[in-house]
């Protein structure tokens, strides 16, 4: 059985191994023990905190194969993107240039540096081991976060965003960066990503364009790379699009990958979730995501169930895994 739960300090060695497996470029999951330790600690602190409005909290979860005590994936939530510094994106704007006299009606796209998404809740650090990609387990790992958010809406913003890795060439270089970022930075993509990881994103205000960039002036390769999703983000992208996230409006300023966004309450799992009372009984039926209502001992799993009215029957094993007893309230959503 696979269980989604908050990370613990004792997970550190296993998480470090996962981080090493994770593709380069997922800057929020570097294979660096200190960084990972801080992530876990920040998550523990955030879970323990009494939060009435979302702030600098961050949450870091794992997906555990319980029988083997093996971690197969991690997923995080940053309560407020850009809490300490602006969260930059390019807004992909459509400008209409129309001349009725000449019967010309052009739609011109332009990329504007913006921090529209600052302060929204950010899904980050998602990684699942290869064999579990595009399975129930990848859905469980990604979507359990939404049941957590549905449980504690005051801990999160009204809008949720997530950055997808953009297209890269075989040598790891980025066609979007080479056509856009390099013009302003004069350095290559890997160096820029490195700076970003080490120095934070503060320098962006010094280096990035104040004026919109007209898309038709970019190289064909760069135009094609705009909004393209890197295969390494395919699992994330697939889940979030099914959840109703939109991909059209914002792209990453470095690699041009799409930044997805959705109104929190409209995310499918959240909108369809509801509270139910558990009864010990036989399982079976359609697959559901089922989560307990604890903050620090949050658990979520996939269970076949047949909710009837406000009640749902769960097997003893499922009750155990959720850490709840007969009669407890849980949150459920169709898988």
């Amino acid at each position, binding site marked *: 059985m696979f269980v989604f739960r908050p990370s613990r300090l004792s997970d550190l060695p296993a998480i470090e191994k996962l981080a090493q497996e994770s593709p380069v470029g997922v800057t929020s999951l570097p294979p660096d023990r200190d960084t990972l330790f801080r992530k876990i600690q920040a998550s523990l602190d955030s879970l323990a905190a009494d939060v009435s409005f979302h702030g600098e909290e961050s949450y870091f979860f794992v997906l555990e194969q319980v029988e083997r005590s093996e971690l197969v994936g991690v997923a995080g939530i940053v309560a407020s993107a850009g809490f300490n510094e602006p969260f930059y994106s390019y807004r992909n704007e459509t*400008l209409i240039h129309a001349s009725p006299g000449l019967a010309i009606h052009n739609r011109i796209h332009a990329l504007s540096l913006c921090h529209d998404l600052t302060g929204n809740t950010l899904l980050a650090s998602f990684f699942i081991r290869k064999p579990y990609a595009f399975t129930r387990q990848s859905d469980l790992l990604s979507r359990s976060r939404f049941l957590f958010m549905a449980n504690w809406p005051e801990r999160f913003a009204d809008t949720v965003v997530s950055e997808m890795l953009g297209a890269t060439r075989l040598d790891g270089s980025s066609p979007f960066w080479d056509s856009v970022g390099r013009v302003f930075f004069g350095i290559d993509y890997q160096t820029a990503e490195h700076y970003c990881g080490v120095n934070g994103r503060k320098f962006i205000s010094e280096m990035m364009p104040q004026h919109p960039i007209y898309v038709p*002036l970019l190289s064909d390769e760069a135009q094609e790379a705009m909004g393209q999703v890197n295969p390494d983000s395919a699992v994330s992208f697939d889940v979030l699009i099914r959840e109703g996230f939109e991909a059209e409006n914002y792209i990453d300023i470095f690699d041009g990958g799409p930044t997805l966004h959705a109104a929190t309450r409209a995310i499918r799992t959240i909108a369809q979730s509801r509270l139910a009372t558990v009864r010990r009984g036989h399982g079976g039926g359609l697959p559901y995501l089922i989560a307990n209502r604890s903050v620090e001992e949050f658990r979520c799993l996939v269970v076949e169930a047949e909710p009837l009215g406000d009640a749902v029957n769960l097997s003893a094993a499922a009750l155990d895994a959720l850490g709840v007893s007969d009669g407890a309230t849980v949150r459920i959503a169709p898988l």
Partner: protein
Amino acid sequence: MLVRAIRRDDLDALLLLARSTGVGVTTLPANEERLLRRIEASLAAQAAEPKPEHSSFVFVLEDTRQQGRVVGICAIEGAVGLTEPWYNYRVGVSVHASRELGVYRKLDTLFLTNDLTGSAELCSLFLHPDWRHSNNGSLLSKSRFLFMAEFPERFERRVIAEMRGVSDATGMSPFWEALGRHFFKMEFSEADYLTGIGQKSFIAELMPQHPVYTAFLSEAARAVIGRVHDNTRPALAMLEGEGFRYNGYVDIFDAGPTIECELGDIRAVRDSRLFTTVTANSPTEGRLWLVSNRRLADFRVALTHSEPIDGQLPLSPTVLANLGCESGASVRAVPLSAATAI
């Protein structure tokens, strides 16, 4: 050769002349109605209150040895952009630097501006190819400075001239291909023609409104920003010799430079003087002088060798006749060039 104010009966000759111009002289399209309007405007300007907003003067060059055949044209506007916006790109600089990263980038930007609104403009210069010799071009172009020196109240202080930008033999402009084409979805020649016939509102409607980083243009396009067409180099050198300078303003279509000078700082304006004419009995000698008859409606300028003696300028009977002057008349004159050998 004689430069004189345009007349109504010049229309046919002008149409003939206009048909021999190529793409790039946007202010002299072979359009009868428009040419007629320009003639009428010039005649009206003579009669109007002397204010820059009323000034639109056109002059022609006639070959006095060929029954006054019209072989060239030039014009001055007293103040541009007062009814419709006047557009230029201004080439600016945007610096991106981070001390922390040790990175420093200096990028050129093109800002769409109306900064030159209200300037006086030298325009519509065209000389028939067969007459491009013997200082005819200088005579035609510089004759305007004597007019402006004579009637300064009719012109704004800042005087500009748009220089034709770089295009190849087929009329292809690298700057247009890199920028304009994306926004106008038409050929350069079409845009050029529309502007020439005064259909300018499409510019505001279709142009990029945000500054453009030149780094996103082709190398060929960047190379021609502020540069003139090879054929325009002599004209540029001539105006530079008169004090005109490029201050970063370029044409929005072909990126040719717009050059500027203060009216009073134009050499031929500043150095022009009044003289009393005297009939020379032998051929006159000395430097080449531009000589004008100081009249508004019947304005004429001739080019002749001479040297003033005691405030008097000796002119041959032919030149006097061309200017419509008697001996003893007052003329305004200036040496054709600021020759270093003065």
